[in-house]
């Protein structure tokens, strides 16, 4: 083996031996399922809800003899337990219910950015949905992707303001977070369906997470469209580079098995950067003993194994493992390496990282500092979205900035530039800075621009107004020659 092969081999071992990056095959004794009492449900339900029973008949569950009651059975103490035809059941099958058999996947998704999707927006909701939108938007909009906090009414029925819902971070009546059916459509639970990009784009589309458009516009999406019949989507084993090579889907890179890298239901595990924040950070993932996780910036010294640090909810937790951004990136690159050379992979990642750094340095950090000054000096009211610059700033990082960064991460040139960084730049120069002057007055605005913008190398061109270019039809040099 060459030294580089040895390094790759060792890295592979390192990553594969980390429990968080490892997924075992589900194995539960078949005597554990196929509740005899659950065989009776079908007779009535094929009449009352024929569509879903037909879907179940097509499922691997039906094939294996897993019936309605196996998933829907509840204990009388469960918050949402109801008596139905003599059985104690619950409408919602929570990840905890699925974990009766799918334990590994449950443990992996626990604490992931998906299962914590409610917490991510909890603080923003009152401003966005409350001020800009309204309660109706929370139930039919926000919560449908992020998840609702399902409320059980006193008679055991589910509060219609919180149900139906298959948001990926749904807070279930049993306290578990997440919704497996968000990606694995009930009641067929098709492997192929969950591996399709369409499983993700129900939510990962639109301004803040335009991954549908980005993927479709990328080489990967192009290959997927052209060769989807070679994707082995129905295959029991689905290892990139082995069972299929035509194209990667969202799942391939973010969750899938590739070469020695095992599949993992923590979708954010391989993300070295945070891309949906005002300023991107390289992040280390801290996994606690109880399975919960938090992201810490790379600048934070890595917590020691066994030490106690504060969790997302403020309580203390014992650290079980820490994945540095470097290791997370290495895991992601193992996927790339199934088809690309090491140099190709490294260079691509470099191009991506440079775009993120550009966004941070040129726009993200200056805009954030200016906004902080406007708030702290009382030039803006503390209430978000009651002043135009607040929308401008929000869209700068949340929409356009996210699009640029996502575009670079998944190789859509168009989204990186025209749909992304170009709009960030246009927004910054032609809306954000003029608004700043309106709010702060010329003198104060100039001071802020001097402090955060023109002193920054990326904005040096603003100091050279005489330097022309023919792009808009006027070129000083040519005018002088003529």
């Amino acid at each position, binding site marked *: 083996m060459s030294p580089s092969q040895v390094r790759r081999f060792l890295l592979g071992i390192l990553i594969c031996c980390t429990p968080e990056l490892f997924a075992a095959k589900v194995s539960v004794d078949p005597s554990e399922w196929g509740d005899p009492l659950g065989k009776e449900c079908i*007779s*009535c339900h094929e*009449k*009352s809800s*024929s569509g879903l029973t037909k879907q179940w008949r097509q499922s691997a569950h039906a094939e294996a003899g897993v019936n309605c009651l196996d998933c829907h059975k509840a204990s*009388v*103490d469960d918050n949402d*337990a*109801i*008596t139905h*035809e*003599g059985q*104690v059941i619950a409408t919602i099958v929570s990840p905890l219910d699925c974990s009766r058999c799918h334990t590994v996947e449950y443990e992996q998704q626990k604490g992931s950015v998906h299962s914590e999707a409610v917490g991510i927006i909890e603080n923003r909701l009152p401003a966005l949905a409350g001020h800009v939108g309204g309660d109706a938007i929370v139930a039919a909009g926000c919560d449908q992707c992020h998840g609702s906090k399902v409320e059980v*009414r*006193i*008679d*055991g*029925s589910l509060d219609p303001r919180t149900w139906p819902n298959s948001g990926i971070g749904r807070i279930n009546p049993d306290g578990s977070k997440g919704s497996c059916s968000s990606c694995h459509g009930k009641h067929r639970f098709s492997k192929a369906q969950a591996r399709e990009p369409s499983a993700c784009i129900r939510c990962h589309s639109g301004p803040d997470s335009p991954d549908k458009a980005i993927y479709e516009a990328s080489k990967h999406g192009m290959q997927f469209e052209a060769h989807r019949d070679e994707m082995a989507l129905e295959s029991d084993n689905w290892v990139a580079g082995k069972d299929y090579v035509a194209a990667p889907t969202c799942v391939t890179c973010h969750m899938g098995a590739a070469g020695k890298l095992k599949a993992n239901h923590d979708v954010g595990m391989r993300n070295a950067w945070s891309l949906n924040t005002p300023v991107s950070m390289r992040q280390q993932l801290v996994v606690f003993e109880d399975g919960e996780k938090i992201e810490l910036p790379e600048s934070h010294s890595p917590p020691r194994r066994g030490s106690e640090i504060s969790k997302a909810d403020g309580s203390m937790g014992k650290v079980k493992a820490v994945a540095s951004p470097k290791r997370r990136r290495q895991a992601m690159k193992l996927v790339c390496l199934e088809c690309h050379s090491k140099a190709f992979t490294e260079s691509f990642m470099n191009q991506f990282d440079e775009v993120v750094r550009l966004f941070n340095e040129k726009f993200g950090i200056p805009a954030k500092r200016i906004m902080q000054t406007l708030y702290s000096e009382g030039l803006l009211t503390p209430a978000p979205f009651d002043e135009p610059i607040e929308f401008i700033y929000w869209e700068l990082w949340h929409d356009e900035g996210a699009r640029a960064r996502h575009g670079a991460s998944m190789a859509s040139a168009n989204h990186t530039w025209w749909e992304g960084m170009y709009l960030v730049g246009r927004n910054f120069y032609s809306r954000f800075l003029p608004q700043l002057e309106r709010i702060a007055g010329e003198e104060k605005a100039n001071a802020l621009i001097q402090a955060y913008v023109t002193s920054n190398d990326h904005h040096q061109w603003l100091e050279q107004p005489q330097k022309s270019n023919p792009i808009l039809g006027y070129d000083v040099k040519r005018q002088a020659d003529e």
Partner: protein
Amino acid sequence: MSKWKLPSFITRHVLMALVIGGIAGIGFMLFLIEFDELTSSEAFCTTCHSMEIAAETYRSSTHYNPVSGVRASCGDCHVSEGVVAATWDHFLGGKDLLTQISGKLFGPDYDDPVINTLHLPEAAFAAREWFKARDSATCKRCHVLEAIQGKRADTNTIHREETQGKSCIDCHINLVHRKVPDEQTFKRERWLQMVEEEFGLEPGGAQRLLAE
């Protein structure tokens, strides 16, 4: 003289007693029929204030305002058919009247919406038992199993093919009055908490009232 001779013990007095007794009996039966009819009406039931609380939810239910215009009164559901059974049900109902009156004097006062709601689950469970014991007979006064169409295509089939050994009340609860979970999955603490929130009681207040 006729060949058919009355037995000698049928004297004139006996004959008169029979006639009078017969008329009185008929009168009594007519009275019972009228009594059962009158005492099955919403107007009569709600002369007790505690029943007015139950009637409130009833008046917003489909049994009060069905599209067909067929309105079920209190007794249509809660009093059996036939004069004997109806009278017996009213006799049993007398217990509620006694509870109501004794409650007024010694507590708990069922006219108080808080007390009423606190004790509602037991009333609901008892009512469901009552329906179950009679195989939902009063439902079947109006609802004919074979004729149930429903909104879904297969509702009729389900009622014809999937109801062996089942009674209406097994599936159809919480149609008219305030919703109470099935006894098996009922959670007292949640019910008490609901009462506390709804009526602005201090925590633990509902439990204390219930114990009184």
